[in-house]
């Protein structure tokens, strides 16, 4: 028997009404002292990666978030009770610190797409004289460094702009850029207080008006999926030393 894990929380001994979980399984709470895990019992190891189950996972987490802000688990987390107990025991302090960080918060996301004008400068012209593989490699590395430096500067600019527009609403922020020669795709994830959702959306709507050259998509509120990870994770890829 395994447990399918939806999220972790603190000080929530009982569930309110919750939608059915993955594979329509009932959802319940398992307590580990003051920490709780929202789980379903998986009677066999069979688990389907389907859209329906992914959405069921989200609906359970979303429903629970109305009760308390949890640390959502990633879709597909199947563990034995011993594995879950060990995980909570080993990461207890980190989990509590993360829960304190997201307490009373929700996640909002902003996606921005901007087309870059005049993109030829950093690209190969195709007219370079014949060069050896070493020179070509170094030239490509140089372009890569320029792109990285440009990306870091753009991230800082974007962060400063969003902070100017949203001010103290942002409790925590994660910004990432997807580099491309022709467009800038930027993603900003914000942790905000749940009572600030309306103000956040109002201020973002005003900010969007100021940047007609950029396409924006604002979504949320979400459970704090983007702020749930504990820094200790992935210190070893897939647990391999």
């Amino acid at each position, binding site marked *: 028997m395994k447990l399918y894990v939806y999220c972790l929380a603190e000080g929530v001994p009982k569930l309110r009404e919750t939608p059915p979980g993955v594979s329509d399984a009932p959802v319940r709470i398992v307590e580990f002292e003051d920490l709780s895990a929202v789980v379903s019992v998986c009677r066999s*190891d069979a688990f389907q990666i389907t859209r329906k189950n992914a959405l069921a996972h989200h609906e359970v987490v979303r429903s629970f978030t109305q009760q308390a802000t949890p640390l959502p688990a990633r*879709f597909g*987390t199947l563990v034995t009770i011993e594995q879950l107990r060990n995980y909570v025991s080993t990461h207890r302090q980190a989990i509590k610190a993360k829960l304190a960080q997201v307490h009373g918060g929700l996640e909002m996301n902003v996606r921005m797409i901007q087309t870059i004008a005049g993109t030829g400068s950093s690209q190969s012209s195709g007219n370079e004289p014949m060069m050896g593989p070493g020179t070509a490699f170094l030239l490509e590395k140089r372009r890569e460094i320029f792109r990285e430096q440009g990306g870091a500067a753009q991230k800082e600019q974007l962060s400063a702009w969003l902070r100017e527009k949203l001010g103290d609403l942002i409790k925590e922020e994660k910004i990432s850029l997807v580099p491309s020669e022709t467009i800038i795709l930027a993603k900003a994830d914000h942790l905000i207080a749940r009572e600030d959702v309306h103000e956040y*959306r109002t201020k973002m709507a005003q900010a969007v008006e100021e940047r007609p050259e950029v396409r924006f998509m604002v979504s949320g*509120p979400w459970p704090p999926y983007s702020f749930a*990870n504990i820094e200790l994770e992935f210190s070893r890829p897939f647990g391999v030393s």
Partner: protein
Amino acid sequence: MSDFDEILVGEEWENTDLSLLETLDHVLNRGLVIAGEITISVADIDLIFLRLNVMVSSVETAQEVLRKRELAE
């Protein structure tokens, strides 16, 4: 009704496919990683799928949604 109830995830988006993609992005690519793998049984044989496979699955799902959108337009 709470504030969270009132503002359904992605409700302001006219295109529900985009909302679905955002939801899948959250549940598949973010969140707490308690175990580095998920286990799927086929014919009573446990198969181990690493996280990477889950992400591949999400991309496939996303592509399917995008294909449907293109056909609808």
